[in-house]
């Protein structure tokens, strides 16, 4: 079984990645999952400065999902480069660094420090979290507008070494995700990461107030899966050559296969790690089994299969003349 997958100039040994913000620094997960055997480890979104994030409660449980409003906590790019990236590199993990920012300038500065760091060679790819709020546009997220998202892509693309793939991670909270995807493609993104969380709210039954200090939060987990699959399907239809990392509620190898046939060449596992930190290995094995059960020997052959007419076509509206049915009694 050939599970390898390509994103721009980079080839990953398998398509199962950990989603940004869900694998900690890697140290915590490493007790349960061999990081070297992941397709890649996507880091928490790295911001310019250290950030404590929002006060608790910043995570709430919802049916088949969780809501989070963490506030992008993290040590900042310098500490990340000094402490976390070298450790990940030592584990032989392929590292995708997620970058965040509240202004275009912040995105640029983070990307520049990554590119200029002595650790830069340990970075397999960069993921751009455009779901960050834009401080220069009253906190509206960059991902809500094609032009704002594209600007971020241009800035990061310009700062990062040209061989390093740039993945842009889009938000589903838009009227038409394909338009945003097209704008990011024009701006030079190597691939897309679909999708970030979806805006939601939970109420605390005791206080009858929003459960999260952030009031609204991002919904993730299996609840979100149908929406994520739709986004991947829709964007793959619009941009068939664009590498897509699909994710949102991946919990099993069958889920991963669904993302692949919808158009993803890799998948990310996020919320499932909170529930089952050993999941990546299991998902990789199950994906391999599911592909084999369909007689597929190369992952690449399965990418986008749901868009192609196959032998086993689902029922369609019959448009030809009908076989006449006689009334027998």
């Amino acid at each position, binding site marked *: 079984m050939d599970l390898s997958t390509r994103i721009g100039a980079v080839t990953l040994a398998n398509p199962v990645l950990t989603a940004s913000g869900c694998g900690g620094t890697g140290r915590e997960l490493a007790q349960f999952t061999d990081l070297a055997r992941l397709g890649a480890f996507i880091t928490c979104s790295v911001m310019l400065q250290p950030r404590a994030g929002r006060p*608790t409660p910043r995570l709430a*449980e919802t049916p088949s999902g969780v809501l989070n409003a963490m506030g992008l906590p993290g040590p900042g790019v310098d500490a990340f480069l000094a402490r976390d990236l070298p450790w990940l590199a030592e584990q032989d993990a392929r590292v995708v660094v997620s970058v965040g920012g509240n202004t275009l300038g912040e995105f640029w500065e983070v990307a520049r420090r990554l590119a200029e760091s002595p650790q830069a060679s340990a970075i397999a790819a960069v993921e751009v979290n455009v779901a960050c709020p834009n401080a220069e546009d009253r906190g509206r997220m960059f991902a809500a507008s094609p032009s704002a998202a594209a600007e971020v892509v241009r800035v990061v693309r310009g700062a990062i070494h040209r061989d390093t793939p740039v993945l842009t991670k889009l938000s589903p909270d838009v009227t038409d995700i394909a338009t945003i995807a097209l704008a990011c493609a024009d701006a030079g993104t190597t691939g897309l990461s679909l999708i970030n969380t979806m805006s939601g709210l939970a109420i605390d039954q005791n206080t009858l107030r929003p459960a999260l200090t952030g009031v609204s939060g991002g919904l993730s987990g299996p609840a979100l899966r149908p929406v994520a699959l739709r986004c991947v399907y829709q964007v793959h239809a619009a941009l068939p050559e664009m590498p897509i990392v699909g994710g949102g509620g991946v919990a099993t190898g069958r889920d991963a296969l669904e993302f692949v046939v919808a158009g993803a060449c890799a998948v990310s596992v996020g919320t499932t790690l909170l529930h089952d930190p050993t999941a990546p290995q299991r998902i990789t094995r199950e994906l391999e089994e599911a592909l084999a059960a369909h007689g597929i020997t190369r992952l690449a052959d399965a990418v986008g299969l749901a868009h192609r007419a196959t032998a086993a076509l689902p029922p369609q509206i019959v448009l030809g003349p009908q076989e006449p049915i006689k009334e027998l009694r």
Partner: protein
Amino acid sequence: MLTVRQVAAYHAMTLVAPAVAERFRPGQFLAVAVGGEHTSLLARRCFPVYEVKSDYGGTVEFVFEAGDPGAEWLASRRSRDSLDVLGPLGRPFPLPRDPASCLLVGGAHGSSGLFSLADALRRRDCQVHFVLGAPRAHEVFGARSAQRIGESATVVTRDGSLGVTGTIPDVLPRVIEETSADVVYAAGPTALLGSVASVSAALGIPCQVSVGEWLADTAACGIGTCLSCVLPLIGDDGHTRMVRACTEGPVLRGERVRWSDLGTIPLDALGGPRAPQAPLEAAP
């Protein structure tokens, strides 16, 4: 799963889990998946371990309160059901190097996490004293065991339905004095832990607290990845950091927790709005 039984106002569940039992150190906890295979409840529930035994290759018992849907699901398990459990997790209680007089303070079923500690302390020739409290008699957990094991055991209920009438902080200074306590260990509701920590600090006695209720209310993964369970803690360097109750805790030095700032990001915490913007090295 072996058994689940009702104990006072709580449920006690025993699991056959040799790998957990073997590595367990007092103060550590379990992260339990709830709702079964097709569950819609994704956050793990975290419970301090009550007791490990060597039966069946190694069993682990923990005590919990029904209330949220996940706990109610747990309470309705039956023998032979299997459970998805991670553990033992978190920082255990540090034990005194030399024999000492130890005061173990437990609120509600938080006391369940203190009995394995008591055993370990007694194996080190420490004196073990208990103070257990709860609003009402049936909410006190382990009063009889405490009386059996402890050199002394003080029970406090708000309504006087068992032991002394009042709250734990009311009686604590007196008990600390009477037991000549060298160290205080506390577990239970967060508000109680704050009081115990400040009484101990005022008397200059080291105090280790296990933030079980905080973990129950905020933890989702139990292993340190989700950053949901953070609280402000003062590090050795005097700087406040948001640390994870599940990983840097659940046992923390009482006077290091910024009790009145729980549920906030103190302005001067690392990464807070008015904190030094340069990264500091990690310190617990």
